[in-house]
């Protein structure tokens, strides 16, 4: 569903500190599967994830979403695609402090103009699904790390996206919470969503829920392994 062709990305182009983060990546992301981008720090996995999630545009190369080339689209259209197609879970969760869990969850629904009642109803279903209904009105800064992450997952799902993108999602979780997170991911993939993660956590990379692992080093794809063995 997502295809990258010869993707290259440079930062500070033309300056003394010019840096090529990606040096020609070709890959296909399988639909309704869990894919992991793995690699050491500086390997380019987060940069690649931002391009896959339409948060950034490549310097060179093509990005195709369901066969349509989206790499040259202006920001406005790219934002629209991002909002409809992708849900994001960030390493630091990036919730807005001072707002309740449910207010954070419905935020991505605002620009679409979906009526508030509809957004709230959808958010409540998601909260109940992730056993977080009792924390509905709690301010996010009062929530534990695991709870914050579940709020972030709900927020990522509020617009019912086809693809869920998560950057180092277990970096701030202990082993138990990481395992719980993987179970959630598995359920999402089972329900037909495509999940793309970056991680260098062995618990994630070696998890049975992961279908494919892309290994990166120095901005290049070094290995692609189909890993799925069985459901966790």
């Amino acid at each position, binding site marked *: 569903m997502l295809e990258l062709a010869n993707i290259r990305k440079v930062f500070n182009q033309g300056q003394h500190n010019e840096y090529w983060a990606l040096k020609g990546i070709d890959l296909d992301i399988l639909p309704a599967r869990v894919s992991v981008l793995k690699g050491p720090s500086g390997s380019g996995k987060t940069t690649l994830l*931002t391009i896959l999630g339409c948060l950034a545009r490549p310097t060179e190369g093509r990005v195709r979403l369901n066969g349509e080339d989206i790499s040259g689209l202006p920001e*406005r259209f790219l934002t629209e695609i991002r909002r409809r197609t992708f849900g994001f879970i960030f390493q630091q969760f*990036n919730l807005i402090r001072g707002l309740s869990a449910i207010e954070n969850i419905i*935020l991505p629904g*605002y*620009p679409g103009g979906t009526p*508030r009642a509809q957004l709230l109803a959808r958010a409540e279903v998601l909260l109940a699904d992730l056993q977080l209904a009792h924390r509905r009105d709690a301010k996010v800064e009062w929530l534990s790390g695991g709870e914050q992450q579940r709020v972030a997952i709900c927020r990522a799902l509020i617009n019912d996206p086809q693809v869920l993108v998560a950057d180092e999602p277990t970096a701030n979780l202990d082993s138990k919470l990481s395992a719980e997170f993987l179970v959630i991911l598995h359920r999402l993939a089972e329900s037909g969503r495509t999940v793309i993660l970056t991680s260098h956590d062995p618990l994630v990379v070696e998890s049975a829920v992961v279908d494919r692992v892309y290994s990166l080093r120095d901005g290049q794809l070094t290995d692609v392994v189909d890993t799925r063995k069985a459901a966790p």
Partner: protein
Amino acid sequence: MKAWIEKQRHLIDFTAQSLARRKGKSLGLLVVYTLLVFVLASVALYTHALRNEATQVLAGTPEIVLQRLIAGRHDLIPPGYIEKIGRIRGVQKIEGRLWGYYYDSVLKANYTFMVAADREIAPGEIVVGPALERTRGLSAGNGISFRSYSGDLHTFIVAEVLAHESELVSADLVLMDEADFRRFFAYPAGHHTDVALWVANPLEVRNVGIKLLDALPDSRPILREEVLRTYASIFDWREGMMLALLSAAILAFGIFAWEKAAGLSAEEKREIGILKAIGWETGDVIAMKFWEGFLVSLLAFLVGYVAAYVHVFHFEFTLFAPVLKGWAVLYPSFALTPQIDGLQVATLFVFTVLPYTAATLVPIWRAATTDPDTVMRS
């Protein structure tokens, strides 16, 4: 369209929550902003109402007042002078008036003594303005003595106190019988202070003035429209003085508001990054900030304007009255008729709400156009 309205509602909701989350900053800004609108609106409302009041009061006065001059100074109208005016076409009524000033050393204030043409006052009685009632404790039936310029003491009985509604022009007025007036000031018989002329057709007033000058070269006709113009320029001048004095405060507010509105905290920048990453467009972020600036300034405008209205029309402009009301010792105490001028409200709105709203938008433009992927790297 429905989705657009719903989106704006979401943005306003989020903005209101943002303001509530930053209580200190929002409240501080609101208070200072409200104060500024309050001061500007107070001055504007007051001068506007005063100008109106003066226009209404002068509407009942004669179209022309004729004074006689000697060596460029005001002199008394001698006997036979009024007859010299004769019959001028367009003049409805001619009337010699008697009035003068009296300095009361007790209050260190000037009163205006006058012979009322439109009412009968019995000899030995006077009708006084509300300021005398207040400062000298006079009421109907009380006696009061004034020492005349010749040194004699004259005692009068107060027959009536003038209505408070007319206080703007009657605060320091003392009305009396003609014989009493002439005796008190040793005013020569047959002389008058000036001559009032009523002209039916407003277009004829200037012509009548020219004819008066032709007939009586030593006279000075004063047209009502000139008096009105003088009043207007006095009020404008005072309003300008007041605003000039306040300009430092206005400038200080401007700097404060600019700094508050234009400065984005690290937390706000982080939030914008998050919003962009989760699918908000640059336009959405700018619209959200627009609502923030607009809501703060609109609220400040409404509260400030209502407070100014109450201050001017219910508390008699207590805070700034001495600057704008005049130089008389006996300040009139009067309630102005509430007046709101749409153009004035619109001007104040444009000069207070728009600059602030614009100030909130300038910095947000830069923050909102940053790449959404920066949030991934924070």
